[in-house]
């Protein structure tokens, strides 16, 4: 008896179970992401720049008195950048720097709002459609096909003009109507391929409810891809909103956006000798776009094992 016992003990190698577990554990998305940012210095820089911009814009616009800034004072009309106005003043003598903060806040918040709404709808509809398939799937997909072939820009502009008493909420609504399609398609295709895997079948056989499978099993497994798309569509939505505001059909005049500031470029003389009117806002949009997209690409690499740097 005792002989046997010692024999087995001698054969069994010493295993540090804790170490083994930590090696075989699949690293979480956030851990991979951290490593990705450590390797890619530029992505880290972009993230820091973004955080700084967001902090300055959000805190700055919170501290500033919006009414004070939007007050028209014709004595300061087109005042060049100097002591009184860091970035100069516009046609109404309003400080460009102050408007930059307020416009930046509006643009960022609307970008976030539209992204959350479109992605929320996209995830819910995409999951349902991808999980159940069949008739619901084909109907929703026909609707998606139809929306994606519509002349979106023109329809949004027409809508903005037609609506009486147009507010920011109308704008968020109309953006959502047209831009939920992308996320729905993405989530659907991922859910479809996930649906065929064994763990879902096993779950179904065990009698797990559909809702639990959708949100407990499929959603966590495709979450990294959703996060990537969330970031990229955030950048896209800011681009669309500022673009429409630039044309004059985005946010209503009461809520200035970065695009509204850029549209000062079309006032006479702005291009040749009043660059301060529109260039700061343009550069702010440009920097934000490049940074958000770059950070988004770092996220994408982290979500796809084949592309990882770290």
């Amino acid at each position, binding site marked *: 008896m005792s002989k046997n016992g010692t024999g087995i003990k001698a054969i069994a190698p010493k295993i540090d179970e804790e170490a083994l577990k930590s090696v075989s554990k699949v690293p979480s998305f956030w851990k991979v992401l951290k490593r990705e940012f450590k390797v890619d210095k530029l992505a880290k820089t972009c993230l820091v720049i973004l955080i700084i911009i967001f902090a300055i814009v959000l805190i700055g616009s919170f501290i500033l008195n919006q009414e004070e800034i939007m007050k028209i004072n014709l004595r300061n009309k087109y005042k060049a950048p100097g002591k009184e106005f860091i970035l100069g003043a516009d046609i109404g003598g309003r400080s460009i720097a102050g408007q930059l903060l307020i416009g930046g806040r509006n643009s960022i918040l609307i970008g976030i709002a539209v992204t959350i709404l479109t992605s929320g709808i996209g995830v819910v509809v995409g999951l349902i459609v991808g999980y159940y398939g069949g008739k619901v799937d084909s109907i929703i997909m026909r609707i998606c096909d*139809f929306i994606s*072939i*519509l*002349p*979106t*820009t*023109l*329809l949004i*502009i*027409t*809508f903005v*003009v*037609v609506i009486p008493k147009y507010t920011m909420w109308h704008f968020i609504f109309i953006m959502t109507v047209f831009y939920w399609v992308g996320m729905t398609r993405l989530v659907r295709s991922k859910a479809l391929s996930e649906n065929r895997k064994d763990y879902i079948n096993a779950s179904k056989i065990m009698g797990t409810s559909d809702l639990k499978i959708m949100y407990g099993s499929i959603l966590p497994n495709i979450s990294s891809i959703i996060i990537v798309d969330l970031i990229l569509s955030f*950048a896209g939505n800011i*681009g669309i909103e*500022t*673009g429409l505001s*630039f*044309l*004059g*059909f985005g946010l209503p005049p009461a809520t200035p956006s970065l*695009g509204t500031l*850029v549209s000062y*470029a*079309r006032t006479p003389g702005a*291009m*040749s000798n009043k*660059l301060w009117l*529109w*260039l700061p806002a*343009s550069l702010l*949009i*440009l920097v934000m*776009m*490049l940074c*958000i*997209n*770059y950070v988004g*690409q770092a996220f994408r690499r982290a979500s796809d094992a084949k592309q990882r740097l770290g």
Partner: protein
Amino acid sequence: MWKTILRRVLLMIPQLAILSVIVFVFGQMMPGDPFTGLITPDMDPLVIEEIKEKNGLNEPIPVQYKNWIVKILRDGDFGRSYTYKMPVATLIGERAKNTLWLSLLTLILTYLIAIPLGIYSGRYQNSHLDKAVIVYNFVSYAIPSFILALIFLLIFGYRLGWFPTTGSVEIGIPKGTFAYFRSRLHYMILPAITAAILRTTGTIQYLRNEVIDAKTQDYVKTARSKGVPTNKVYTHHIFRNSLLPIAAFFGFTITGLLSGSVFIETIFSYSGMGELFITSINSRDYAVMNTLVLLFGFLTLTGSLLSDIIMTIVDPRIRIE
């Protein structure tokens, strides 16, 4: 294959019908009616009412919709422009020519930039050129179109003075002469380059991946082992194979060009359809607006139809039965 195409065309009809309903509803929500363009201040309200009655504006809305569609399909009558005092069809026809030429030049420039860059960066993967192309691709993808257009306008139009900053042709040059043509081209180049740069991203990315993949394919290995020179392998074998999918994107490229024209034409004050849309909306010229939305919708649909057709020709696997 003809069956597939026919099905695809038939599928377009309900889509167009829904779009026309949307446009009609928007039209109903707008103040004014198709005769606002004819009315002058010294007209008797009773006469206006009579015109309205005669033209069925007091009919129920579904009947009005039917009349509107019949008019468009039968007579090509889209109403009259309020600001330009001419039939909408004539007005848009004039502007469409400008947009068409601009789009054509943009298309040529897009492929002139994208194809060499895509193929070279794929061929010399990880070289300095490849890295530069990746940076270029990232920036052209991330930058919003109106920002790039404004920056180009500032640098090349105002600071360097290489290109005119507004308009589509120099005033005073007689039509049909060579000078007229050259002036047109001069006015088009800057907007076309801007639009082209914004559109190259997808093509470059696609070509680059395709070429990198093709390098390890059997047909390339066979060609190399037969003794075909490297350059010829790239220009003949790989190039042809990777070009097919790009041909299939062609329809979507046209669609993208049209929707982008609103921004590009407005910024460069190029008098095409996109600019006409913005000016008509600013002057509340509803007949022009609605027709343009309808037209852009139709063209977008045709673009995606074209893509699908090319795709079925290029790749027989996609054919729907």
